[in-house]
């Protein structure tokens, strides 16, 4: 009930002040601002990685293996003598790429399917429900592993199967949400009006309904990136993700596990990087959720 009322408001208020409202509310949330800053920082580091890192992340120096953190090697070296700081920095790139693309895949698929189901109803709706039920019933980890097994590794650096797999396994939530929203949107006045004016379903869906979902989509993006980063780290840890010598954080954690006693920096640094990134995106998602819908109390 509360949601429907809000959507009606959206339809009547001019757009610009809506976004300003959102931004102002976000600004008031200190935690969310901190995480926003951190996210932007991550983005900057990822883009400027070659400038930030001191050494080449894949160059080895066997004599210098497992050195403790020092002036030359800020985070120490790993088993092959590679500089961990540079690897963590470079790993930011991989994490963000995976996060963004996987989330994009999930959202595009989820919104499209959910939108079609919500708008058309009937048989199409049933079909979409069937498809997402199957995906949801699949044990999620096994689904991702099965997909990484089946998909070919293409692209540079061969991450295609990883982000596609993560994306394909996480679109269900967005799909359900879109479907529910669209079912209520369908009866809105502006939709009926558009249809009366002769607008086709595609134009209605993508021209009117989706824009009303922007808030949800933005929140979903932030949350999705967090989830994707965590997922990529998890499957790399299990050995199914990024191949060496690419510095994925999950792979670094997996490599460093046996050296916890002897060389703690090998696992602690990438682990902390992962944690901070996931935290930041999650906090940002929470903050955005608050900002878009102040009546929705954050947990």
């Amino acid at each position: 009930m509360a949601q429907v009322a809000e959507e009606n408001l959206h339809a009547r208020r001019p757009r610009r002040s809506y976004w300003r409202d959102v931004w102002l509310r976000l600004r008031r949330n200190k935690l969310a601002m901190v995480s926003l800053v951190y996210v932007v920082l991550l983005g900057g580091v990822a883009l400027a990685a070659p400038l930030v890192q001191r050494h080449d992340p894949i160059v080895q120096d066997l004599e210098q293996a497992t050195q403790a953190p020092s002036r030359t090697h800020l985070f120490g070296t790993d088993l092959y003598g590679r500089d961990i700081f540079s690897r963590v920095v470079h790993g930011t790139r991989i994490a963000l790429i995976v996060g963004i693309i996987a989330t994009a895949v999930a959202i595009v698929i989820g919104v499209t399917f959910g939108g079609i189901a919500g708008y058309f109803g009937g048989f199409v709706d049933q079909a979409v429900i069937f498809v997402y039920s199957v995906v949801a019933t699949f044990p999620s980890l096994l689904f991702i592993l099965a997909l990484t097994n089946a998909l070919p590794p293409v692209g540079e650096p061969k991450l295609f199967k990883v982000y596609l797999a993560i994306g394909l396994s996480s679109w269900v939530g967005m799909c359900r949400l879109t479907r529910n929203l669209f079912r209520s949107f369908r009866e809105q006045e502006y939709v009926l009006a558009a249809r009366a004016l002769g607008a086709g379903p595609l134009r209605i869906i993508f021209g009117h309904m989706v824009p009303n979902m922007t808030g949800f989509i933005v929140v979903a993006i932030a949350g999705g990136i967090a989830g994707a980063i965590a997922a990529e780290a998890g499957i790399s840890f299990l050995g199914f993700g990024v191949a060496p010598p690419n510095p994925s954080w999950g792979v670094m954690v997996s490599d460093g596990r046996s050296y916890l006693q002897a060389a703690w920096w090998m696992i602690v640094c990438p682990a902390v990087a992962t944690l901070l990134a996931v935290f930041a995106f999650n906090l940002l998602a929470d903050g955005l959720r608050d900002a878009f819908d102040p009546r929705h109390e954050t947990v």
Partner: protein
Amino acid sequence: MRLYAGVIRFFIVVVLIHIAMFLVVGALARRSEGPELPPNTLRLATDAIQVRTLDPVAVGDTASSGICNQVYEGLVAYNQKTLAIEPCLAESWDISPDGKLYTFHLRRGVRFCDDPCFPDGRGREMTAADVRFSLTRVCDPVAMSTGFWLFDDRVVGATEFNQQRAEFLEKHPRFWEEAEAWLGPESDGVPGLRVLDEHTFAIALKRPFAPFLKVLAMSYFFVVAPEAVKAYGAATNPPGKDSFFRHPVGTGPFVLERWEPDVEIILKRNANYWHETLPHVDAVRLISRRDPHTAFMEFEEGNSDMAGVPDEDWERVMNEDKTLKEPYAGRYRLVTSATLTTFYYGFDMQNPPFKGNKALRQAFNYAIDREALIRSKIYRGLGRAAYGPIPPGLPGHDPANKRYAYNLEKAKQLLTEAGYPGGDKLGEIQLYVSGANDSQDRTSVVVMEELRKIGIKVSLKQQPWPLHLESIDRHEARFFRLGWIADYPDAENFLALFLTRNWKPGPNSSSYSNPEFDELYDRAMLEPDEGRRAELYRIAADIIIEDCPWLFTTTGEGLALQQPWVRNYPRNALGLGFYKNVIIDRALTAPMAARDQ
């Protein structure tokens, strides 16, 4: 007040339910301990509990053959230290002057272990007919043998027999539903395997094969009881029922008491064993410990008798020079041994870019700093640099050969000669490896980096082992990592990897072909004198080194710690374990020197 009492009662109920749940589920979850084990049991914690089969002819992995070694025996056996051939089920043998007929005189009084498959449950005496049965099975595709290649084109009539059985298979695809399908009528047997009388057995070869006795000591040729095969149906039943591969009946020093996959294997002394004093231990228990660190902690607590030193504990326990730190040096015995294993990266010799381009292959070989690799934290000094196909310890190995010692300039120069200056135009090369679970192939990472330094771009393609082999078979993999563990301690086993006739489906994975080499090999097989044969081996190896169908990297070395009360634990270059000789002497509290065992 009333409310709080209610809440408390509620929580008590919750806790009680949980306790009950624990007890019930836990009781179901706990694997029952099995019988109480005697104090002189040999206990090993290992992650090699991935035993797949205990049918000797189908054994393809070290875990399975390790157990088979305890419950079965063959005509001859390896000495547990020197790997020299010793009598086992055969007390003595004669080899004909032309080297083509081996006559074995079987030991008398050898009994199979007791088992319900025998009419009165008692194991009967082993005879030559049993030997014939067992060896014939090796050639029978119906038995799903993986050892036929050793008899193929060697033992008289083996190839033809295998052919016949293959045709039989084609006509009777669901052979397990037919009663006597496991072995054809007597006349269809292998002519080269002959029963001369109850205790005499002969094998006829098509041409002399010098290492034949060493081959016979392999686990494929262990003697099994025909009654067991018939009763429990080897591959004749659909697998999974109580099959022969799970129910071994042999003449070995131990019997299989219990096999819980992924949990433990318990072996008990075979009451019918023919040797008067062996085995010394009454039982052997192998516990599954997937995590090497946990296995090591069990060892430190005294719950297992031997362990390898995992990464986590290396710095704490070991010195730089591979000796034990105090106080561990006074507590455990350190045992190192070079193993007859060579690790290499094969080139596909039948396809570009490596085909016909010796300079390219040599460039690869010069680009790797093997000594640094061994010294690094990856190997920690365990292993030796390999510059040729034959590992140290075998006649034919040339210790002076350091042909491809690390030389970056030479590598770059050869690369240019090969037509790819600076690595241009070579494109990206895919290195096929098989990684299991989350253990990365560390050497491959180093190799990739070293090749990158001379401009060659390498990417990794990881697949599970069977797919890895398939990619090599199909020539999809041009550059791939493999290793070879010696089947028997003779350099011939390594040189055979380069024979033209051993192309797929044989073990010649790089599809190397050189008539000069083949001829040299054949000559060596005919040479009865060990010294001259070793010289021929060396010359043959030189050809391989020059042509380098492989990127040679390292040979293996193992290190383990033993408890002081363990004596005579088998230590040999093949990593074979014969537990029958082990003595558990709880009276010992400090490790004895190795020579005293």
